[in-house]
């Protein structure tokens, strides 16, 4: 095995990043022009990285699966972005942001990475404002902040309920400028399907032109994966329809390590599932928990009556309502971290107190907020979310409480990277949600945007130079090299095999089966028996897929069914690895909840003595079990505690 | 200044400015018409001495003619370009987007008004200023009487009223749209401009119609 080297610089926590920057190697401007970098993905991380690398003078090739970088799913983030600016003067600091993030991640993230994230958070806000991102402002003209789950300070910057959109459009505008100045070449409607390795280094990709269906080869000195997470393994998630794990997964199959695959986040405030035809779950911003109060009926008979449609929530008297988050977590109340809020909802619903026709929903009530603040203020804060809810559910949240239920939202796990955001394959980098690095076992709200932009604007553009400085004498590669030939052939064979199955089931119908297994057995609460069952069932799904899938149309054509099939083949394998990792991690931490390991109150119970590590999985071949390595998480600066959101 | 004809906003600026100029002319025209109701003598004096075949009137006529021609040419250019921009394939379903009818039919309304102008110019302007300038026989110096002669025919009255209504629709969109194009608009002024446009177009058209009816019914030269 390769030696695990996280390359964390020595020295005090607050000086590590500065020290690193002072001593890293740089590439001079004349040489930058001779170096090509492939960036796959155009979300917050990908777009900001591509634009910044282009500005620096590198020759960047940027790949986008949609018709425009502006469609990347970062656009859907609603609530906000954290930064340690301490503008509200409520005691925030870089250290506090670092600490909250580490704690929120249930002490399963690397200290140095998280500290760096908190450190550069302030520059992100400066950068975005300079680009013309219209953040919310106070009447005095200065930036406004709001509070968010898992924090006791107001450090979240926001642009109405569309923060992700505005930040992405900012990064996208920088990318547009770089494209205009010929610093970046943009490839839209392209999907990366394989990584090309030459002499042990990442040197290119094979991508499918989604319009023509042709496979194309691209060579570069380094490859950056910024393709987001793999939440769609669950079929129903808050991810976009094209969000997929294939780019990362193909890197894994070429030898890149996968870190903490089982760490998936369930978001507590989504619109509940309502039918078999459902294609995705819609997230309602977590910011709703600032003013909304979550409850279910106190009496089981009330819950039953509501489920049967005989009672309306407004008919339940105040004393018959169970505001269970406020009851269980007096200090944080409705603002506990996502994993805690999600499990608490599941606990109530499993006990039979759920509402809605399915009994799989809880109320998020604004009646008190409307009374306290007035309808105008509530409308100003959440108007667009209320409108969105009403369009989907056909209920008016100003008059009747919203119904919410948890859904898969984000994957903390991803390609393993060191402090430089480089995977174990030299020249292969992973940034944003695609890597595993900063959120540990659970991500706090408003931190994904922060991490994506931190990686893309302020971290990768430095660290990649430390690698590229050694590559200046390496000539541009020809895509006719046997390595490219071989990769393309392998891929072509795979596509041929898929097309030749011509079975009975559509890709989506098999994906739904996969999702069902994942949600029931590898979802919010996991146990040994279920996980073992999942592994068996996932094998069956895989078998079913490779014998029964039907892909209409031709391979060399615009063919969405083929695209989906290629992604699903990978999702099934990702699901298997998630189950293995979840089975292996016999503790509960953050988003990973093992039923066998909980406190008396039903909270996560970590076993720091045995599991304070990053699980790193290495691919060993089609029919071989993957191997797991452990990267120990030795905490030098923070003392691990039982997370406590009660007092 | 080639941007004026090369850029879309430049071309629309030309269309707007010429349109606004024509609205000003219509207001002037209306005031002349009103004079007719009160005094034929004053009307003829104004028509012959102040306007007539004087150099300033000729210049004015040329400028006005230029305005009309530019407005028509650009209407044709813009409409043609827009037709091409819509693409070769059209929607099968009819658009159900709720917009003001006039805004979609400015060109058709314009064509209608141009047709009317041919009749109107032949009946009035050709008989007076044109014949005068080119020494053609049968020049009419009794403008007031000419108007009365022409407008006492029922078909003429009907044609005029129909054209006026088309003009109302054209102006109702044209007025605020022109100001919008020159950039003089925002969320607050949008409503005001539309109301003002409504007022201006109604004033002009109602004025024309009232005068036309008054002439038809013989209520002119009232001060005599």
């Amino acid at each position, binding site marked *: 095995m390769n030696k695990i080297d996280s390359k964390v610089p020595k020295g005090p926590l607050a000086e590590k990043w500065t020290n690193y920057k002072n001593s890293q190697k740089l590439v001079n401007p004349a040489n930058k022009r001779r170096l090509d970098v492939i960036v796959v993905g155009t979300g917050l991380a990908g777009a900001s990285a591509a634009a910044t690398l282009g500005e620096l003078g590198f020759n960047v090739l940027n790949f986008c699966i949609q018709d425009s970088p502006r*469609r990347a799913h970062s656009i859907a983030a609603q609530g906000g972005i954290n930064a340690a600016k301490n503008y509200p003067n409520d005691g925030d600091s870089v250290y506090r942001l670092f600490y909250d993030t580490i704690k929120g991640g249930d002490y399963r993230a690397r200290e140095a990475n998280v500290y760096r994230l908190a450190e550069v958070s302030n520059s992100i806000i400066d950068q975005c*404002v300079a680009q013309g991102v219209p953040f919310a402002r106070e009447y005095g003209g200065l930036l406004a902040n709001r509070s968010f789950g898992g924090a006791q300070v107001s450090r979240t910057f926001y642009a109405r309920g569309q923060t992700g959109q505005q930040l992405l459009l900012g990064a996208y505008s920088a990318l547009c400028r770089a494209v205009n100045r010929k610093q970046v070449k943009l490839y839209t409607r392209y999907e990366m399907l394989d990584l090309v390795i030459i002499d042990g280094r990442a040197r290119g990709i094979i991508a499918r032109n989604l319009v023509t269906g042709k496979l194309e080869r691209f060579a570069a000195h380094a490859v950056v994966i910024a393709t987001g997470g793999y939440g769609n393994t669950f079929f129903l998630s808050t991810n976009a329809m094209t969000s997929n794990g294939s780019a990362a997964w193909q890197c894994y199959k070429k030898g890149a390590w996968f870190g903490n695959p089982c760490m998936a986040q369930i978001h507590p405030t989504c619109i509940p599932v309502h039918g078999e035809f459902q294609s995705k779950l819609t997230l309602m911003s977590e910011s709703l928990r600032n003013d909304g109060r979550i409850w279910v009926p106190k009496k089981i008979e009330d819950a039953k009556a509501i489920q049967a449609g005989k009672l309306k929530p407004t008919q339940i008297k105040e004393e018959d309502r169970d505001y269970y988050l406020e009851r269980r977590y007096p200090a944080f109340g409705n603002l506990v971290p996502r994993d805690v809020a999600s499990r608490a909802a599941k606990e109530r619903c499993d006990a039979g107190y759920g509402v809605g026709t399915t009994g799989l929903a809880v109320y998020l009530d604004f009646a008190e907020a409307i009374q306290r603040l007035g309808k105008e203020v509530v409308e100003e804060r959440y108007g667009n979310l209320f409108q969105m809810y009403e369009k989907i559910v056909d209920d008016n949240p100003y008059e009747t409480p919203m119904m919410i239920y948890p859904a898969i939202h984000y994957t903390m796990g991803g390609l393993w990277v060191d402090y430089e955001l480089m995977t174990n394959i030299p020249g292969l980098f992973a940034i944003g949600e695609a890597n595993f690095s900063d959120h540990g076992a659970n991500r706090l709200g408003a931190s994904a945007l922060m991490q994506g932009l931190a990686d893309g604007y302020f971290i990768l553009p430095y660290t990649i130079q430390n690698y590229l400085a050694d590559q200046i004498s390496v000539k541009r590669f020809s895509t006719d090299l046997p390595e490219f030939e071989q990769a393309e052939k392998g891929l072509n064979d795979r596509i041929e095999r898929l097309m030749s199955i011509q079975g009975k089931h559509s890709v989506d119908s098999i994906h739904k089966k996969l999702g069902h297994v994942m949600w029931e057995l590898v979802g919010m609460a996991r146990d040994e028996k279920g996980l073992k069952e999942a592994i068996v069932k996932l094998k069956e799904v895989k078998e079913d897929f490779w014998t029964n899938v039907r892909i209409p149309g031709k391979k060399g054509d615009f063919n969405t069914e083929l695209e989906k099939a290629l992604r699903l083949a990978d999702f099934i394998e990702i699901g298997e690895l998630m189950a293995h990792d979840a089975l292996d991690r016999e503790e509960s931490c953050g988003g990973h909840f093992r039923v066998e390991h909980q406190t008396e109150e039903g909270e996560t119970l970590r076993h720091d003595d045995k599991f304070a590590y990053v699980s790193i999985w290495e691919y060993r071949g089609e029919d071989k079990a993957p191997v797991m390595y452990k990267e120990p998480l030795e905490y030098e600066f923070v003392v691990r505690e039982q997370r406590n959101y009660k007092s | 200044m080639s941007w004026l004809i090369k850029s879309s906003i430049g071309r629309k600026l030309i269309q707007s400015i010429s349109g606004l100029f024509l609205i000003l002319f219509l207001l002037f025209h209306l005031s002349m018409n009103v004079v007719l109701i009160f005094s034929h003598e004053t009307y003829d004096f104004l028509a012959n001495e102040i306007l007539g075949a004087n150099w300033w009137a000729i210049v004015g006529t040329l400028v006005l003619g230029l305005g009309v021609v530019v407005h028509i040419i650009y209407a044709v250019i813009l409409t043609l370009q827009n037709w091409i921009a819509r693409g070769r394939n059209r929607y099968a379903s009819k658009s159900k987007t709720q917009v003001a009818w006039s805004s979609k039919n400015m060109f058709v309304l314009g064509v209608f008004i141009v047709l009317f102008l041919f009749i109107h110019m032949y009946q009035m302007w050709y008989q007076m200023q044109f014949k005068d300038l080119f020494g053609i026989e049968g020049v009419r110096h009794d403008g007031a009487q000419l108007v009365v002669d022409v407008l006492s025919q029922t078909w003429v009255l009907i044609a005029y009223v129909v054209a006026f209504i088309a003009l109302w629709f054209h102006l109702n969109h044209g007025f605020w749209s022109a100001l919008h194009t020159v950039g003089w608009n925002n969320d607050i002024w949008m409503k005001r401009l539309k109301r003002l446009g409504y007022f201006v177009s109604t004033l002009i058209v109602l004025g024309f119609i009232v005068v036309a009816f008054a002439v038809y019914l013989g209520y002119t030269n009232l001060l005599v």
Partner: protein
Amino acid sequence: MDKDINIKVKVWRQNGPKEKGRFETYALKNISQGSSFLEMLDILNEQLINEGKIPVAFDHDCREGICGMCSLYINGHPHGPDGEITTCQLHMRSFNDGDTITIEPWRSAGFPIIKDLVVDRTAFEKIMQAGGYVSVNTGGIPDANAIPIPRDKAELAMDAAACIGCGACVAACKNGSAMLFVAAKVSQLALLPQGKPEAARRAKSMVAKMDELGFGNCTNTGACEVECPKNISISNIARLNREFLKAKFKD
């Protein structure tokens, strides 16, 4: 209350950019009114795949009304008959039992068809690349609070910045004009002090690119504003005109 309905959909099918297209009509049974319009199309595609036919290609991604990927001209409306939403947010409760729904791609010279209902909107990319940004490099930026911006200005900028680049404005416009799209970006950046230094350059180059790509001339019908899923006001078009004319007259 939501019911199950039986409907027919008349869908534009076209194999490729150069091929001739045609309408095909399909019958769908027991569609829940609680399902979204795109879920209805998913069901149609499932049905087509099971019948051994080629499914209908349509653009979609986030399915929550923000990415701007979905399009479709439905019964005479871009994004369908409901207001202030994208097609992915349209629900079948907007339709009744027995309806025949006509589904067409965006039609405009600026948006050529790729396949079936999928159109090529890279023209919007090119317009953005021509100047839809503030020219700042990463880093070396003053503190975010260094320039106070009046709240109403920031809010107006945000109103304009809400554009999702879906192209409904072009699809709705009888002139195939992209003015609302361009105006939204020019306005957002012209309203903010950060965007001021290159406001003139931006307005000129974005409009020039828009004209070059064959979009039509705006005649202020306001159809774009009516169909815009994000309620972008045509006041922005007046601001664009102002910015553009100011810039040109200054030259």
